[in-house]
């Protein structure tokens, strides 16, 4: 087991190394660099920007260097000193910018995950045992509608409705008065009052997928002989269900957790923009748009690491559940 984990860990390091190269390449793909986007912004604000100044800045940021030199500067800083570099735009260390956003991002992601589970579980179980019933179709329909409507559309409409009919303050996770206040009970309450829209919007898309997984797994289990036996022995239906099939059906569920979290972190980008949430997605998008190289690259690297670690966790879980996998 230890060797298995160690081997997977080495794979992970290799993968991350490749990801770091690719993420760097992705940032270089769009034409121009941070300075051209900065100058574009400045000239949109009406300023004339001096070419010599741009050249000097380009030298200072090393943007004129060959790509591999830039890459080396970045990756060696991360590996040797744990230094993710400076954000060009904010003139601050990338790491502090990312960490500031991570707290609320994770909070919201985890809350959304629980929401998804809370909805997908019962619906999944129900639609498996009452397969083809009207209720099952209706429940699945609701789940799928959530999947089918683009997130930004739901977000926009929700926001409009909440503004129009409930007079709630628009966007963000806090009312203005709590935005910069220190943490208090009232602020937590305010946060909770603001969290339901993003949670529902973010959750709708994931729910249908999990309902599907739950239903499929449970159907597989329900067809197995031991269930029939248990039924034949006269156990009440809910005991029969909860004793084994649901638990077994849960296994793949648990092992997908590793995948779900990073998906929420980056997948929430569009929703976070529309709902004006202080999450990592909008900052990632902005850094990509302004070509804030080190910030964007580090973000991609971080999200990839989350995914790879998630995969590793789910693989280890699977190997732990099923020893045969170890030999494969």
């Amino acid at each position, binding site marked *: 087991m230890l*060797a298995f984990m*160690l*081997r997977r860990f*080495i794979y992970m390091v290799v993968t991350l190394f490749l990801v770091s190269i690719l993420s760097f390449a992705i940032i270089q793909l769009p034409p121009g660099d941070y300075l051209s986007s900065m100058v574009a912004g400045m000239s949109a604000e009406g300023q004339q920007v001096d070419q010599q100044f741009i050249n000097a800045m380009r030298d200072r940021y090393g943007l004129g260097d060959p790509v591999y030199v830039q890459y080396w500067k970045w990756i060696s800083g991360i590996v040797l000193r744990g230094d993710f570099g400076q954000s060009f735009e904010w003139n601050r260390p990338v790491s502090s910018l990312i960490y500031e956003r991570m707290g609320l991002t994770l909070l919201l992601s985890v809350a959304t995950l629980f929401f998804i589970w809370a909805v997908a579980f019962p619906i999944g179980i129900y639609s498996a045992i009452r397969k083809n019933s009207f209720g099952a179709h209706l429940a699945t329909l609701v789940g799928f509608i959530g999947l089918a409507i683009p997130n930004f559309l739901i977000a926009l409409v929700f926001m409009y409705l909440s503004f129009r009919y409930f007079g709630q303050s628009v966007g963000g996770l806090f009312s203005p008065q709590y935005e910069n206040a220190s943490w208090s009970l009232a602020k937590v309450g305010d946060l909770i009052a603001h969290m339901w829209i993003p949670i529902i919007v973010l959750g709708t898309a994931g729910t249908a997928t999990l309902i599907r997984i739950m239903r499929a797994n449970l159907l597989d289990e329900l067809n197995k002989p031991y269930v029939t036996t248990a039924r034949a022995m006269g156990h009440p239906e809910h005991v029969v269900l909860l004793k084994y099939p649901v638990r077994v059906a849960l296994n793949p569920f648990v092992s997908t957790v590793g995948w779900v979290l990073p998906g929420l972190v980056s997948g929430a980008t569009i929703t976070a923009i529309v709902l004006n949430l202080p999450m990592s997605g909008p900052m990632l998008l902005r850094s990509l748009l302004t070509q804030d190289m080190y910030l964007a690259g580090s973000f991609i690297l971080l999200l990839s690491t989350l995914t790879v670690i998630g995969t590793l966790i789910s693989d280890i879980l699977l190997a732990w559940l099923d020893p045969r996998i170890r*030999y494969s």
Partner: protein
Amino acid sequence: MTLVAKQGIRRSGSSDRRTPIYTVEGLRVHFPITRGVMRRIVGQVKAVDDISFIVYRGETLGLVGESGCGKTTTGRALLRIVEPTGGRITYTPPDGDPINVRTAGRDELKAVRRAARMVFQDPNSSLNPRLPVGEIIGEGLHYHGIARGAEIEDRVADMLRRVGLRPEYIRRYPHAFSGGERQRIGIARALAVNPNFVICDEAVSALDVSVQAQILRLLRELKDEFDLTYLFVGHDLAVIQHICDRVAVMYAGKLVEIGPTQSIFATPRHPYTEALLSAVPRPDPRVRGTGERVRLAGEVADVSNLPSGCAFHPRCRYATERCKTETPQLRPVGEQMVACHFADSLTLKGVGSYAA
């Protein structure tokens, strides 16, 4: 090899029974165990470890043992479904030169696989649910180049009739048949290409008891009709006793005893055989209750980490110090061949002489 030559057979058979059809010498099937990051090979799973036996033309040889003992692997190694890692397997066609199965080229292997066939344990997984039975049975005829076009259909229909299914079912799909019927289809597929050797890999274990009897009867009838030789792999000694001429007992990848069915069942020479036999249900009320059930302590030996000496010694109630250090060799004792240091001195209980 002398060892092979010395194996006992029933004298009463016709002369061609003495002709070997399959000769297995020192067969090994090992799987490497890798450890660590570099996948260093640190050990071997000795699924089959140095076993030798001969299958003679016309007989039914039973291969028994607990699950995991290597019997299925042995059966599969004979057709190179799993690759042997050592030893020699020779198939001798009735009218041709012996073929070294291990080194056979594509065409030779194909010839072996045409003459030597297999019936699988689970008819559900061995029949492709997406093909009609006609196609399943006819596949061998087509790809072994035995028949073409309409001829295939005729022969398949004939084959169906012979295994007791209606020829008009030829276009049905496996899902339309019951378990027993599916196994009949599996048998038909094995026999369609006119083989002379069939490996029945737990061919009836997945079936209900009543159906088992029908299939066994069918197998016996077909054996006579087609002049077949069977290697019958199984764990159910009652079934083995019912159908086999000789029995080979395997434990932890090794052959521990081999000999005529009657003598093995009456006078087992190996403590493991005794233990296996004691678990056989006894339908005869007169003998029921007289035998003492030999309970095997502990688990089947781990083939990736075999005990020293005799692999059976940790579970053997007769084990001595010698058994822990010295590996017993297969040697003739009476009509049988046994791998036990004390085969001569032990008096072990059989199951009496009630069976056919």
